[in-house]
């Protein structure tokens, strides 16, 4: 009896890639609102820039932002593991304890957000200590993600590290490969978080001002960091340039600038759309870079494709249904008036 072979992908690669990049962008957008929003709230809190109700208003949406970040993160992780299992599992195993601690860090952040939000609801005050704790949890998580996923793109280093230490206490030592990348992501989060705060607090001059400052400043800093990272790619830079990366990069930058411009005109909806598309472009750039770095050890085209159309269709229907229900519930919630 020949057993079924599991080494296949159950949909055309382009389809999986689109879903992967799209859900990852959604996750990063939520994550950026969360991480950026938290950092900005801390900053404003320390400098006593906001009124108590302003701070409480932001604190009260952070639990929902956490829920969104976590639940939107599941899908891209699934697609990542589908296409790059050899790289991703290997890297997570070598850094096993650090990777697992992410769960603890996120639970800690989540509870801290909830406590802050309940406290804000009861007393009108926001506890900076709790917010700092949550920020720490999120920063740890983002750093682990950057370091582990960078390790996943360095198969030789991975092998060498494992040969020396199998305990799961290995931290990716190639800081050059992910330090700048991580800073770029955090600054990007600050940018998106700035946008988020400025829109959320558009009725409060103080909040809108802080948000705008983070939006503009964050974008400039993120762009600078991104440029440095690009230069640091070194031997990969040449091959990278020969991919469609450059035009996409220019487009993403243009979209980011358009977002800034529209934001200053108070066209928040359009500005947000441009920002999201710009983020999508960055996610695509990141995807291409991964393939460039993995050249020689991994080729997407090597996957056997054996579509499972009926389960895929089921997913598609449920996915659309999910979007419809989400929108419908939000309308129900925000438009409904309580009974007298």
């Amino acid at each position: 009896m020949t057993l079924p072979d599991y080494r296949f992908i159950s949909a055309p690669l382009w389809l999986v890639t689109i879903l992967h990049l799209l859900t990852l962008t959604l996750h990063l957008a939520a994550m950026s609102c969360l991480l950026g929003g938290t950092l900005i709230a801390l900053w404003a809190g320390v400098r006593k820039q906001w009124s108590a109700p302003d701070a409480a208003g932001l604190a009260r949406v952070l639990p929902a932002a956490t829920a969104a970040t976590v639940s939107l993160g599941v899908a891209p992780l699934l697609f990542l593991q589908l296409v790059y299992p050899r790289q991703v599992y290997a890297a997570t195993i070598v850094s096993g304890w650090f990777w697992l601690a992410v769960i603890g860090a996120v639970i800690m952040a989540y509870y801290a957000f909830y406590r802050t939000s309940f406290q804000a609801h009861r007393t009108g005050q926001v506890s900076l200590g709790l917010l700092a704790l949550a920020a720490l949890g999120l920063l740890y998580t983002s750093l682990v993600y950057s370091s582990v996923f960078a390790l996943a793109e360095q198969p030789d280093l991975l092998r060498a590290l494992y040969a020396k230490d199998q305990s799961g206490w290995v931290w990716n030592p190639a800081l050059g490969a992910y330090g700048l990348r991580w800073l770029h992501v955090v600054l990007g989060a600050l940018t998106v978080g700035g946008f988020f705060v400025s829109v959320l607090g558009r009725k409060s001059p103080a909040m809108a001002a802080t948000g705008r400052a983070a939006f503009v400043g964050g974008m400039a800093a993120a762009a600078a960091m991104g440029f440095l990272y690009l230069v640091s790619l070194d031997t990969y830079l040449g091959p990278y340039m020969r991919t469609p990366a450059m035009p996409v990069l220019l487009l993403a930058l243009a979209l980011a600038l358009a977002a800034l411009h529209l934001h200053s005109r108070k066209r928040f909806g359009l500005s947000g759309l441009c920002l999201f598309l710009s983020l999508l472009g960055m996610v695509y750039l990141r995807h291409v870079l991964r393939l460039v770095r993995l050249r020689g050890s991994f080729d997407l085209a090597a996957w056997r494709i054996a579509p499972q159309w009926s389960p895929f269709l089921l997913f598609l229907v449920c996915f659309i249904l999910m979007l419809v229900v989400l929108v419908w519930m939000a309308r129900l919630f925000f438009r409904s008036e309580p009974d007298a």
Partner: protein
Amino acid sequence: MHYPFWDQPIGYGVLMAVIAVFHVFVSHFAIGGGLYLVVNEHLARRDGDTARLAFLEKLSKFFAMVTLVAGALTGVGIWFVIGLLAPAATEALIHNYVWGWATEWTFFVVEIAAAMLYFYGWKRVTAKAHLTLGWIYFVAAWLSLVVINGILTFMLTPGRWLVTGDFWQGFFNPTYWPSLVLRTGVCVMLAGLYALLVASRLAAGDFKARTVRQAAGWAVVGLAVTALAQAWYWKAIPAEVTARALETMPTSVRAIVLSLWLAAALGAVGVALVILAPRRFGTAAALAFMALGMAWFGAFEWSRESLRKPYILTGYMYGNGAEVALTAAYRRDGFLPQITFRTGDDGADLFRHACRSCHTLDGYKALRPGLAGADRAYLLALVQGAHLLRGNMPPFLGTPREAGLIADHLYQRTDHRPLGAIYQVEGLALGRRAYDLRCGKCHAVGTASDKAKSLAGQSAEDLSGMLDMASSLGEGMPAYTGDAAERKALVAYLQTLGQGGKP
């Protein structure tokens, strides 16, 4: 084998259990609790029962914290852990079921969003809108069970999938429906048990009596559904799987079955008492029922996991990640060519990939203590006869040379003084130790391979003669390689075996 091995001291079973047990309770509670909340909100609103509405609102706060934070994150936690502990099996599952998981994810997102809006919506939205949100929450949560149940049951009973590789045949496998009913029953039961706990702390009075009685009703109904589905489930598992389990793990399986019925009976009696005397129902009793319910469900999950041994995906992949389809390649070329992450110590690498996912040396399922006193030849026999030992282990599929490397690895790490010196024993006590080391691992007393009967009544000479020709008694039966003192003690002990171990 094509992954690095996470060599951590805690033991895979423990780590998995810690997260899985917690998640399993929370996730089932999240479904049942959702149903409990909306059904009761519906009744309370219909009757204009403000006391109950206030009770439900309080309940929903705890509920939201548990499901949104603990439920969602331990779910992600399991995902992380299985990727670390069983990457090959996770990979195989994802490739076959990615669209199942993706579909489950859509329900998960709706579930989380609905839970949030429901929780924040008590004072914000109309009664009708609030109830709608509650129902959306429950339906989405239950649908995520409908999907994940297909993948979970697939692991134990892949059914025709093994032949066809068809998504749906693996999904709607032989245990799909009984398991779905069973888990739904568990959801309802846990919701009832939890509501009982909250209600037990209410001030005595009519409201308390009503709430306790009703929550008890939930627990009883859930319990009854679960108990019936359990029997159905057991029947749905292919007979060869249950027969093998009964044969090789008779005590644990029988204990589970017994404990299940016991818990069912106890639960039913206890809950009946609650129905008769709800006013005085106290927190201690509520906690006891909760513990009982959890123990029962925990035992079920544990038995499901044990039944699957030696596989992680029945008929497809062994617990250590060895793939059934590669058996011939392993036998011919060994494990080493498949182990792509090497450390330079082949014995250690082989031990990790063949044995270490189930064993540690000193902690969980420790090997070092039980192997003390063994010589290298005997260790080699144990490695090559792993599938004959108690515990329903996978066979060692590598080459003889590789078995030797694992034996060396173990030999360098175990105590090989004589048993008498290790344990400071002599006489029958020494014989017993010798039996445990050299016979009991395969012929555990009370199992199908117990040899007590066929040894009964033999003389010392006969028994000693049998030990001389031990290796010819059956395929996989090792030669006797212990020293003379142990041999004498073992023979004396064997003579007592026919009499139940007494001299």
